[in-house]
């Protein structure tokens, strides 16, 4: 058949030279390579003791962020649930009552917020969909477990503790970080 691309090149050479026919030179070359590796430094990272570095934007365990004052950012708009291709997120929303302003940032909040970690595919679409800076994926791993019931993560496992904040600034673009410094925007108050 004629050449279609005009830049093809046959790359296969099937005839063997005498040396190749005799098996031994190639075998010797092979064993020398493996021997060299025998004495090389090993690449293994002994996992539970040593941990491999994750990228700052690794998509792992979700977190529901609180704002600076400790109020939950989530307003239960449901965009994350809509954007989830695995349909792993469910939530019910509620009206914030008087006196709960320190708990919830907006007038509406998520009464329950559940992510089915067995369904979740960690695609990061929920993080992108969130307009309130509330849900982020982090570089933590979701732990394995014995039964399947424990894998529906509710707010207890998702919302970051007040005293142990989870840093997600590395995931945010420089423009967002710059924007966050300006207190005149309502979002940052």
């Amino acid at each position: 058949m004629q050449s279609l691309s005009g830049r093809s090149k046959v790359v296969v050479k099937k005839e063997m030279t005498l040396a190749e026919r005799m098996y031994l030179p190639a075998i010797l070359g092979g064993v020398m390579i493996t021997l060299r590796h025998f004495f090389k430094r090993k690449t293994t990272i002994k996992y539970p003791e040593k941990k491999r570095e994750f990228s700052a934007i690794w998509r792992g365990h979700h977190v529901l962020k609180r704002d600076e004052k400790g109020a939950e950012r989530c307003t239960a708009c449901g965009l994350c649930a809509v954007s989830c291709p695995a349909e792993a997120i469910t939530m019910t929303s509620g009206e914030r009552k008087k006196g709960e302003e320190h708990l919830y940032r907006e007038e509406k909040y998520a009464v329950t917020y559940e992510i089915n970690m067995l369904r979740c595919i960690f695609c990061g679409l929920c993080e992108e969909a969130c307009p309130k800076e509330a849900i982020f994926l982090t570089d933590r791993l979701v732990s394995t477990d014995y039964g399947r019931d424990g894998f529906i993560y509710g707010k207890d496992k998702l919302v970051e503790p007040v005293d142990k904040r989870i840093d997600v600034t590395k995931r945010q673009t420089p423009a967002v970080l710059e924007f966050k410094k300006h207190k005149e925007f309502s979002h940052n108050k």
Partner: protein
Amino acid sequence: MQATQTQNTDIKLVEKPEGYEGAGFFATSLDKVVGMARKNSIWPLPFATSCCGIEFMATMGAHYDLARFGSERLSFSPRQADLLMVMGTIAKKMGPVLRQVYEQMAEPRWVLSVGACACSGGIFDTYSVLQGIDRIIPVDVYVPGCPPRPEQIIDGIMKIQHLVETESLRRRDSPEYKAMLNKYGIE
């Protein structure tokens, strides 16, 4: 040393005198030794069907090296395997095959369900995909992720090791275990 010890105790176990039964008293040291041994010699059967299988390759590779846990000897024959690692989507067409493989395995056997698809069907909530392998076989440890990082797979194996180590030798003969299998319609 350990080996001979176990052999001896093994014989004793067969001729165990009446009245010395009961989990706590007699079998504990044997349980411990056997548990330790089994724990470090889990031969997995990689039931790798899709993406997670590639991550399993990474787990076997140089960076993570499953061999450190004594598990690099893959047994593709279910008779020889201790751990069934189900990695990837199990379609309804595959279900009976998976179950047959499980049935062919020799006791004691454990099942590790790796990845969202095997655990629950994951993103594939479709007519052709089994929504979680625990509908047809009992699962011991679930590893979430799609696919899980090798770290998570190793975590799963360590969880399995913990199970293996603490399991009583008699568990597999117990009525509870049989009832559990019966629930799945096995045997």
